[in-house]
């Protein structure tokens, strides 16, 4: 940060600039490889396709973004300090977690909200069991992605619930935990189910056929992880078998 008007209070950035500079230079959009191929092409229906000659090139590109969390920076600093914050509108009383600094209730005319500390407790509003993911999260598979309503908040915040994928349900009570290494992002926290809850009869996942198919496809995910990253099923299951 070269801006003379700002004062850096804590700096976990400077070594990172160095580390990633090499990577940004490597991913410079230069051509790093190429292929000549023959491939179907041309107008019309599938059956009309002809074979044409094409050249493919490989061009990497990377960048390090420096992003401000803006007026809700306090929330993310809170994660690093193991405290969960939301905001509350002084006009209509809506409590937001994720926080917004301005109330979105049209009757409040974007009133400024106030910070409130929230308890480390919540309830699963909805969920998905992820057996495939975007590139950034492949090593976390399989995981439960859930939208959790923190106690006292009117909205939900997404997080991973560390549980056996077949045990999750809508309405599950959870405790919020913080990871040991925290960087000021939502991944710094996660949820674990409060002990002693029974899966309700009417849970939409509570069906022997659904659970059987889930078990089958979990094996596929484990096999993928072993092949791609050398990860072992037993080690993965340890995440929730504690």
């Amino acid at each position, binding site marked *: 940060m070269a801006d003379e008007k700002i004062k850096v209070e804590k700096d976990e950035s400077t070594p990172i600039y160095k580390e990633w500079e090499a990577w940004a230079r490597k991913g410079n*959009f230069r051509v790093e490889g190429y292929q000549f*191929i023959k491939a179907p*092409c041309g*107008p*019309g*229906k*599938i059956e009309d396709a002809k074979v*044409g000659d*094409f050249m493919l090139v490989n*061009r990497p590109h990377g960048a390090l973004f420096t992003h401000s*969390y803006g007026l809700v920076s306090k929330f993310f600093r809170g994660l690093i300090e193991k405290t969960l914050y939301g905001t509350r509108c002084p006009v*209509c009383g*809506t409590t*937001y977690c*994720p926080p917004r600094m301005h109330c*979105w*209730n*049209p*009757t409040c005319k974007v009133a400024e909200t106030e910070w409130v500390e929230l308890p480390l407790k919540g309830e699963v*509003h*909805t*969920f*998905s*069991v*992820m*057996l*495939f*993911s*975007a*590139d*950034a*999260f*492949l090593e*976390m598979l399989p*995981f439960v*992605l*859930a*939208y959790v*309503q923190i106690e006292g908040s*009117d*909205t*939900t915040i*997404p997080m*991973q619930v560390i549980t056996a*994928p077949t045990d999750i349900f*809508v*309405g599950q009570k959870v405790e919020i935990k913080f990871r040991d290494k925290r960087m000021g992002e*939502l*991944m710094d926290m996660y949820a674990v189910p409060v002990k002693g809850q029974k899966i309700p009869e*009417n*849970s*939409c*996942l509570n*069906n022997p*056929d*659904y659970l059987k*198919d*889930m078990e089958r*496809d979990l094996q*596929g995910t484990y096999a993928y992880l072993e092949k791609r990253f050398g990860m072992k099923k037993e080690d993965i299951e340890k995440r929730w078998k504690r």
Partner: protein
Amino acid sequence: MSRVAIVGGGIFRGDRFRYENAEEGVAIAFRDLMNDTPELDPQDIEFVMMSYFSDHLNQQLCMGWIIQDYLGLHRKPGYRVESGGSTPLDAIINAYYLIKSGYYDLVLVPGWEWMSEVDTATTNEFIASASDTDWDFTVGGYYNGYYACLETRHMQLYGETIEDLGKIAVKNHNNATHNPYSQWRSEHGTGYITLEDYYKDRIVAWPYRRMNCALISEGACCLLMASEKVAKKYSDTPMWFEGVGLGTDSMRPGDRLVDWAYHGVYPEDEKIYPDTVKKPKTPYPDMANFGSLREGAVTAYKEADIKNPVREIDLAEIFAPYDGVELTLYEDLKFCKRGEGKTMIREGIVERSGELPCQASGGLTSFAHPVGATSLMQSLFLYWQLSGRIPEKFGDSTLQIPDAEKALTTGHGGTGCQGGVIVYSR
């Protein structure tokens, strides 16, 4: 004010990989349009309304300039419309507004997307940057996951089953086997699948299997849109706009539990809420339904004077990136009441032989989904449908809905952050 019509279209078939590049694909679609519309002199085109979603996927900003240049239309006024998955529908609606308002009589709408330059997981990651990257993306979110969460909530509230989602998948994939421009037919061939095949398909993000999710595609499509004054010059069978509507909803789906902008707007839907789960402050849309599409439908139906969509509309091409979206939109498009979406598939109403066939083309999971071209492809399919030209265009009459007069299509961006509806007539 002038009426507005679609008077022609051309397609560059979508597939997982296409090796012509985007400008060449669009040019091929444009030539297909001109072959089908012999009266069209490119010099007659007054405005170019370009439709493409992502700048990330090809590392090219201002791709629209390349396209206008490549087609030789670079002297004409033109710009790009972008609103996530709703991009192509919003481009059509933008062109509609321009013609309707009297500014232009003839507008070309080219749409395209080239989505396979990075691997599948990275494509998913780039697309996921259309979600809130501070609040939704970082925890392992991407659209399969977000939409799976939305479908889980709807399922828990209203009791549709995996079988219902499977029936929608089977319907759409089997329809696509009769569509010679479909990616499913390119990848799989013309054999039908059954529910058993669906159950064998891999779960990606429960409750969704691969077959429930939109394809990743490369492809292009061009539509020609005209005012009433010039429409007949280009087409004997114009497809007229009867009504359009747009809507929006929150960026983050997780905020829809206090969706104050929707509070009290749809009281009948707020009441249809089970007492088996905790009721949020604003029970509609919650994380279950799509308010943006409801807004779009209400506006479009008013303009088109539609009172009973199932009876008055002959077929629908819904922008459903996931099968649960299709089921939920049966409700938000007022084909049925909230919570009754499942009966539309169970009773066969949305099958191609039913009262309101949905996704006869195969839709986003089977036709193809090159985002910027998708609604153009669906509208072109409807143009062929309403003029009875499916047998001629497909060499197979199976998908032709007999005597179709009115059709509906929708757009859908983000997690329903953006939505739109168009009602067409012949």
